[in-house]
């Protein structure tokens, strides 16, 4: 599938950015970057978090004004005073989290802000629906223009976002991590659409963390590091190692450092776990010191199953045994008390209570332990928080400052401290490295190995095959709410897992 065709490239770029700089108080987000986009070509923009990718997108779409540098379209310098100006010049962006409106129809979403008008200046509904239908047809999206957005799946919403981007006679299409929330099959559909856009001569800027995707879809690349463009060229002539070196400025040898850990006896046994609508008949055994990867397409019921294990939803059937004792989990309190914790996706949103002091966040899940005769013992909470702050090298002026004042990395440490403070036996990590850069990923993976070495059992939900294959001792695959199989790591390949997850036996 990953065939990079030798497309005859136009000699002159359709859009060129030269020496673009942009500063914010205290930060130089972009420092003289050069980017060129060619018609009919996909250019991948690669870089760690904070390398300046999002700022570049905002400069290109007229949301930010550059402090220095030129933007040239067809060789002529242009200046985008606002987002409307960039749109008129044919530059359009599909953002990571698509900004669409649930209660409006597909056609209204596509044409919001630039709806076709009748002679009286009113919205021409018939024309709008017809053009929306044509746009959706052009990208092979089987969606009715009359459908309400709230009834669509995430993948379908993406298609609507793409149709919206194309509704303005786009010449340059920017895609900011478009595959982050898509399953394997949906990514393939998206790539077919990108191929078609290429055929229509559009220049595409594709931002992604995933190398397999980049090599599959893009011809050219630009690498950003610390707000500078540190490399650009053709992917066919550049190896993955070389790009990784450009990104991090050093070579990353062990992306998945799963340490060898002696695996002990069974800790958690799940038998016939079922839910009325989301999953059915899940059975497996989790052993001490083991990392069990849980793979599947988005919507296969993995998160739903894990939430039931944690007591957020209740199963309709099935038994749980933890260290030989039968267990009924009716609420997260039960799960935490039994030693099962769940670290959800989007730790920013689900993780810390930002206005609360650090020590209160750390003790939040174990308030029962720091309460005497109905009153909280602040001294004990501080002791607890101090212990984990030291262990995780948490840097803060004081443990009484609100978590919201910390940097992102330190906030994450507070969240981890909260879970470790519950002294868990089983820790469920839902997409632990989604959307984070390579350096941080390695840190998370090292941390997981360490937890396993201490005798914890880990269930790792992940949609990234390299991570699943690199980190798991065993891999469990779910498909449409059912268990599709469990494999030992030795001799396991990606193809087996993808076949199990998609049902292509």
């Amino acid at each position, binding site marked *: 599938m990953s065939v990079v065709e030798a497309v005859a490239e136009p000699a002159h770029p359709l859009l060129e950015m030269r020496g673009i700089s942009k500063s914010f*108080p*205290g*930060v130089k987000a972009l420092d003289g970057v050069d980017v060129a986009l060619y018609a009919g070509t996909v250019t991948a923009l690669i870089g*760690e*978090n*904070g390398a300046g990718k999002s700022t570049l997108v905002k400069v290109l779409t007229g949301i930010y004004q550059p402090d220095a540098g030129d933007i040239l379209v067809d060789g002529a310098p242009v200046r985008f005073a606002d987002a409307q100006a960039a749109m008129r010049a044919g530059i359009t962006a599909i953002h990571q989290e698509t900004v669409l409106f649930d209660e409006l129809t597909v056609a209204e979403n596509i044409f919001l802000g630039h709806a076709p008008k009748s002679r009286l200046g009113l919205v021409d509904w018939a024309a709008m629906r017809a053009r929306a239908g044509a746009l959706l047809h052009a990208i092979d999206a089987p969606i009715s223009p009359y459908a309400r957005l709230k009834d669509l799946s995430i993948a379908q919403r993406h298609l609507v976002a793409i149709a919206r981007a194309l509704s303005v006679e786009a010449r340059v299409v920017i895609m900011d991590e478009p595959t982050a929330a898509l399953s394997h099959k949906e990514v393939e559909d998206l790539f077919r659409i990108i191929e078609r856009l290429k055929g229509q001569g559009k220049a595409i800027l594709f931002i992604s963390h995933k190398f397999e995707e980049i090599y599959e879809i893009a011809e050219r690349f630009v690498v950003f590091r*610390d707000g500078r463009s540190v490399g650009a060229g053709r992917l066919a002539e550049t190896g993955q190692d070389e790009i990784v070196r450009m990104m991090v400025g050093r070579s990353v040898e062990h992306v998945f450092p799963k340490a060898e850990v002696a695996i002990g006896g069974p800790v958690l046994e799940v038998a016939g776990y079922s839910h009325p609508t989301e999953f059915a008949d899940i059975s497996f055994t989790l052993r001490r010191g083991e990392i069990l990867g849980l793979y599947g397409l988005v919507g296969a019921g993995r998160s739903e199953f894990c939430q039931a294990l944690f007591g*957020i939803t209740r199963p309709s059937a099935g038994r749980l045994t933890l260290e030989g004792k039968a267990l009924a989990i009716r*609420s*997260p*309190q039960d*799960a*935490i*008390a039994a030693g099962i914790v*769940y*670290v*959800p996706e989007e730790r920013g*949103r689900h*993780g*810390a*209570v*930002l*206005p*609360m002091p650090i020590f*209160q966040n750390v003790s*939040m*899940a174990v*308030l*029962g332990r720091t*309460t005497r005769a*109905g*009153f*909280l013992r*602040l001294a004990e909470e501080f002791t607890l928080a101090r212990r984990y702050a030291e*262990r*995780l*090298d948490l840097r803060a*002026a004081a443990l*009484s400052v*609100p978590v*919201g*004042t*910390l*940097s*992102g*990395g*330190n906030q*994450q*440490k507070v969240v981890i401290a*909260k879970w470790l403070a519950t002294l868990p036996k089983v820790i469920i990590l839902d997409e632990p490295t989604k959307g*984070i*850069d390579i*350096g*941080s990923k*390695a*840190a*998370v993976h*090292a*941390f997981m190995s*360490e937890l396993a070495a201490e005798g914890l059992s880990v269930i790792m939900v992940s949609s990234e095959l390299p991570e699943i294959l690199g980190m798991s001792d065993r891999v469990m695959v779910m498909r449409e709410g059912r268990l599709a199989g469990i494999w030992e790591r030795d001799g396991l390949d990606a193809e087996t897992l993808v076949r199990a997850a998609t049902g292509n036996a």
Partner: protein
Amino acid sequence: MMSRILKYRELLLGAIILALIAAFSLRAPGFATPRNLAGIFNDTSILIILALGQMAVILTKSIDLSVAANLAFTGMAVAMLNAAYPGIPLPLLIGAAMAIGAVLGAVNGFMVWIIGIPPIVATLGTLTIYRGLAFVLSGGAWVNQTQMTSAFLDTPRIPLLGLPLNGWTALLVIAVIAVVFMRTGFGRALYASGGNPTAALYAGIDVGRTRFFAFVLSGTLAGLCGYLWVARYAVAYVDIAAGFELDTVAACVIGGISTLGGIGSVAGAVLGALFLGVIKNALPVIDISPFWQMAISGLVIIIAVLFNARQERRKGRLILRDAARSPAPAAAEGAAA
């Protein structure tokens, strides 16, 4: 950093109140005498108690618009009880007021927690219903001073060290609420479930139940105030304290309780209520029309909200500076851990 701003903010509000008192006493000598100030505090007691109940609800990202209607109903109920059975001892009547208030609060909490009605809609409904019930209960009749016992009417007025028992009640409530909010699991749950409901859920805090008990607390305090109000004004009728629920919300907002939940202190809510109390008592003294009083409270609310919004923006910039200082903070994590 933020706690310093919060502390600073409460000090600022306290300073503004003192400056107002100083300014008013220039125009009206005798305004700043201990006797008059104790009078103002006593006069603001009911607002302080209600604002603390409202604060509990607002901390959980909710709002209780039914507090004044709850007060009117419970006030009417205990006044009628007192009139009909003068033999019932006062502590029992106060207990009954708090129990009735708690039940009405629980009705709000039940609708929000179990049925899932948005708090503003649920309590807007009960606001009307509770006043309607007060009408049904009384048949629209008043309970007058002459029908109530002197113990019922006069006990809150008994002075102790220069402050009537009414004021001491407010001080007691402030102390209890401060301990509950800062030193109990329920208090912590209030802040957590408003500050980040999802995080609270995953940490084993039952957000719905916390909200339910916040409404029960607000209702209980409204019930207590039902008695205090009727005793203070020596009359019970359907429309007492009409619109007073908005004063309680205003006191919270002025005191820095975030309407988005999870942020605010007991001191802030008390100072917010005192600010309104000082203005209300001072303006007539210096011959300013009560209409100005409303406009001034309104203006202060808007300024307080602007102040909050500016703090939020400053916080945003701070994060950006942090990110710049440590470009890959998470990378250190694995190495250190």
